[in-house]
């Protein structure tokens, strides 16, 4: 089960990068970047996963000593999601400007910067 989750994480990162390589639409490119990032969420959560453990919130229903999943990677994932939201929004805003200035969002047709 865990091996499967690690496989999914690696797959998401690689397919995201592959999507950027093969992309014919800049919106698709930006979404592929966030798919690659989703791979890192799955990886981090899998690292902290324990079979039979509960969420790391101690209280009346979860007394001290109950096995819980690792809260550190969950905090890292949350941070990562915030980063993702910022970067995706910024990149999409740039795509809108590319569409306005170049009249296209096909990366093959953007030829102003080269060499």
């Amino acid at each position, binding site marked *: 089960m865990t091996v499967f989750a690690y496989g999914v994480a690696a797959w998401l990162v690689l397919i995201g990068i592959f999507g950027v390589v093969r992309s014919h639409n800049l919106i698709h490119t930006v979404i592929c970047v966030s798919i690659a990032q989703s*791979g890192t969420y799955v990886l981090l959560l899998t*690292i902290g996963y324990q079979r039979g453990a509960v969420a790391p919130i101690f209280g009346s229903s979860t007394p001290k000593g109950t096995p819980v999943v690792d809260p550190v990677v969950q905090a890292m994932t949350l941070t990562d999601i915030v980063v993702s939201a910022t970067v995706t929004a910024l990149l999409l805003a740039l795509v809108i*400007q590319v569409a306005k200035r170049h009249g296209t969002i096909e990366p093959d047709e953007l030829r102003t910067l*080269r*060499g």
Partner: protein
Amino acid sequence: MAGIIAVQALPTLLIAVPVAGASVLLAVGRFLPHRLVDGLAVATTAVNIVLAVLLWQATGNGQVVTWAGGWQPRPHLVVGIVLVADRTGTGLALLIAVLAGCALLFSWRYFNSVHAHYQALVLLFSAGMTGFVLTGDLFDMFVFFELMGAAGYALAGFKIEEAESVQGGLTFGVLNSLGAYLCLSGIGLLYARTGALGLPQLSTALSGHGMDPLVLAAFVLICTGWLVKAAAVPFHFWLADAHAVAPSPVCVLFSGVMAPLGVYGVARVYWVVFHGVVPDAAMHRAMLVLGVVTAALGAVMCLTQRHIKRLLAYSTIAHIGLFLLGIAALNALGVAGTSVYLAGHAAVKGALFLLTGLLLSRYGSVDELGLYGRARQHRVAGCAFVLAALALAGLPPFGTGLGKGLIDDAGGSPLLTALSVAVSALTGGAALRVALRVYFGLGRRPHPDTTAAEEITGQDEQPDLRPPHDRTPISMIAAIAILLAGGLATGLAPGFATAIGRAAATFVDQHGYVARALSAERLPSQVPPPVAWTTSGVLLGLLATALAIGVAVAGLYGRVPGWLRAPIKRPLSGLHELHSGHVGDYAAWLVLGSAALAGLLIV
């Protein structure tokens, strides 16, 4: 003043002050007069300069360690996020503050139509970089990496009315984000193996554990992330685009510190965490190959540009290659050489970018051929450009010459020395060629038909700044003068070289770092390497300068002989075609580079 502020608060303040300044500017900037906005921004960087100097004094030969919220690891408690400021990190923080100050000074009263966004972004950008150099936590390095990244993408694409600008910003954003996610995957794998994120804790955990394929994979992924920022070949494609389109004062920060911070990241993570785990021979080989390829490709691409900002950007790539060669020596002398060189290069390259910014604001073009002889009346700027170009080639007594000499000594190989002289001569010569052609009208008059459709000329760039006044504003001149003086100071200032030598000895002292961070124990300081001008260093610097003049003259007057034209044309145009401007191609190169790095470390 150091008595009023607890020493432990200094690293935190260095990060918090620019963030606070940016927040204030974003909140009330639109209601304030422009002068006040600029004044606040420059004052914020001035506060940071003072804080960095205080921290430099407090670090001595050790580290200032700050555990956030007092959460220090002790028995039954392993969490805690740490800032570990040593002299290398503090020196970089000082450099960041000085360069941000110069960038803001240069753009004084400009960009004022946009609610202080520009000033706030520069401050956030410098906060991200400062955090990156002061933190002692691997995940925090990633977070600060992303903070400087996000601010950097926005700054690169700042001139949104320009087609190139938004495209360059987008390429920069996509490539650096992918690098960052590979890096985060590596951090995750390392956490899975050790259960630690702090650099000192990771060091302890790994030294007991040793090497295995997972640790190696983590190291490759983390290094990939930092090397994308460092723009080592083949991760370098975004850099020229981002530099070509970003406002010139922003290029000072991009070229001077942001890209070199990638090299810092690799060196820091290697020396604190992976030293003794990754074999020395493998690390040496990987850095050597990356450094040589980066330096050579950057120099060739630099020489064959006519867009002045792209030319300077490729020269930055070439010099990043030389930084990597300094790291490849894997000793304190190499680190000291890289540190001195980094500081000297930042000052000199910053001055060159600002002078280019002046050209752009006057003539609305950064095309070397198009500007032929047009800036003749700006003799002083021309002389400054010539001086900075010679300093780039390593003219003594500039800090670049001192740093290069030390890297050559650390490398200890005549071949590497020859490469470093050649790279210095080619990049310095290219910059000198620009200066002589544009400011002094030397060389053959370019044919009107040389505007090849395939090349980027930089003819129709939008000026960064408002239409020129009759006289160059004093704030712009001041920024350029500060940078040139800084370049001289890094080579001449008594005590600077000695201090860098001691900082480098501390930097490579893995046990000292861990002991100081985890148990506040101060181990005896290491013997610093000899950091001073040597006769061979001075002679090599003069040789590189002379060769640079030769390269410039050849570029101005020489013709490529007919028999040589065909054999060099095809590889050159192939090389230029590789830089296709297509973000997908660049992403493919990123994966290939990561695989190549793994191969270099395993073989």
